[in-house]
């Protein structure tokens, strides 16, 4: 038996197939993950993401601390509520986790990290935080819901008092604000518009029911994976890990090398890697029939690579993947599936964004 979110009993009532995910008993789907995928692309889907960890970092030097801890630079966060996607690195550049950090006040930042890495993340952050007198508090009292899709924001707004709706619908991308007991951010992991809502665990069941009544459809981890892969978003443990730096994982854009005076953990290793890049992450679209899967080997004119995430894309009706390949790989590559060489085309992710094919 694994850990259970405050919505576990609701998932059972909704007919979920439950699977283990990072030690948590989570819904894989509620009948058809492909139908759930299409619901998010065309209307609105509801995900329980309470297994992810919300951390509150507080203290007078918290911004200074985060500028040291993270590869992206929280100096970019000047408007309260604004969030930033970043990797947290080891000294050798390996990725400990990817996360979103939001600036609330000069003495309070909130961070959301992955479920499977929460224990090691907390240990690492606390070890680094001591010197900055920053306190790290895990918000186990919170549940988290993601409402995603073209109609997600409008349907969520119906749950708020009329006076709050304009403010909610006016949230800019990657900005969060508090609405009563809710902490709402205009973020997501699907390539669609929507919100992620942190709220007291005891309120989660009622809000789930209200969103269902508003016509938002439950979606499980299966749909979440196909949606994020179509959107070209990394999954920690597949596309990102401690053995590879962010430059070899498609996340160079998240590393703030400027200003050069900022000394963040992993900087020296990344400077060396940047001077002699070897691998990069690209998108693949399978030209033949079949399904690309993680760990299948990729043959390119520049050498061997590996698929880090692969699936069948419900939106494109063909198989897509992210692959770590030698820098400069272009055109067509060969993927071996059950002993057969199949052709795949190299593309730049995302594959799908805001419901539209990008390939």
């Amino acid at each position, binding site marked *: 038996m694994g850990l259970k979110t405050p919505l576990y009993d609701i998932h059972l009532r909704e007919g979920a*197939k439950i699977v283990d995910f990072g030690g948590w008993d989570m819904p*894989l*789907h509620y009948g*058809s*993950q*492909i139908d759930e995928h299409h619901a998010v692309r065309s209307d609105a889907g509801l995900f329980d993401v309470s297994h992810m960890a919300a951390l509150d970092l507080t203290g007078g030097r918290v911004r200074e601390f985060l500028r040291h801890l993270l590869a992206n630079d929280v100096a970019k966060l000047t408007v309260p509520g604004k969030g930033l996607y970043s990797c947290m690195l080891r000294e050798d550049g390996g990725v400990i986790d990817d996360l979103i950090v939001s600036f609330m006040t000069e003495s309070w930042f909130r961070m959301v990290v992955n479920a499977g890495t929460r224990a090691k993340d907390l240990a690492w952050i606390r070890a680094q935080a001591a010197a900055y007198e920053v306190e790290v508090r895990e918000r186990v009292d919170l549940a988290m819901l993601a409402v995603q899709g073209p109609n997600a924001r409008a349907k969520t707004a119906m749950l708020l008092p009329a006076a709050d709706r304009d403010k909610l619908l006016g949230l800019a991308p990657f900005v969060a604000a508090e609405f009563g007991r809710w902490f709402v951010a205009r973020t997501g992991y699907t390539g669609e518009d929507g919100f992620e809502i942190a709220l007291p665990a005891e309120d989660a069941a009622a809000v789930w029911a209200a969103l269902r009544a508003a016509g938002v459809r439950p979606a499980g981890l*299966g749909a979440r994976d*196909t949606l994020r892969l179509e959107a070209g978003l990394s999954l920690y443990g597949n596309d990102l890990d401690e053995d590879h730096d962010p430059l070899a994982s498609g996340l160079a854009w998240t590393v703030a090398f400027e200003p050069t005076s900022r000394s963040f953990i992993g900087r020296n290793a990344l400077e060396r890697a940047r001077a002699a890049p070897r691998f990069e992450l690209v998108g693949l679209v399978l030209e033949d*029939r*079949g*399904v690309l*899967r993680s760990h299948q080997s990729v043959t390119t004119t520049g050498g061997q690579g590996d698929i880090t995430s692969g*699936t*069948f894309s*419900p939106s494109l009706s063909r*198989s897509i993947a992210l692959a770590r390949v030698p820098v400069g790989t272009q055109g067509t590559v060969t993927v071996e599936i*059950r002993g057969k060489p199949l052709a795949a085309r190299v593309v730049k992710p995302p594959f799908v964004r805001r419901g539209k094919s990008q390939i």
Partner: protein
Amino acid sequence: MSDIPSDLKYTQSHEWVRALPNDQIEIGITDHAQAALGDLVFVEVPELGRRLTAGAACAVVESVKAASDIYSPVDGTVVANNAALASNPELVNQAPYAGGWLIRIAVDSGNAAANLLDATQYERFLADEAQ
């Protein structure tokens, strides 16, 4: 509960087997198997005339999440394959015992399938597996 027709036989790897005239059989995957795999997106069946060996992989069904091998219950030769699955793999989810059949096999003489379960035995096997 999954559907387990009483007129079919079953394997412990979740294939069903339907006896046809002239020492032929038809095989597919059970309702339990299709539900466990989830939405199927790719099915690869062997070409006509291919020789099959009992217990060896002969086809592949892939759902969004995973690939799964299908094992031949007999020694024999492929005499028909379900071409509709190439463009409509979801037939296996929708009708695993009818439109979602995989292949028909001419069984080598004197080589009838061994160790098959009847519906009651398969139901008990599923219950034990769930423990």
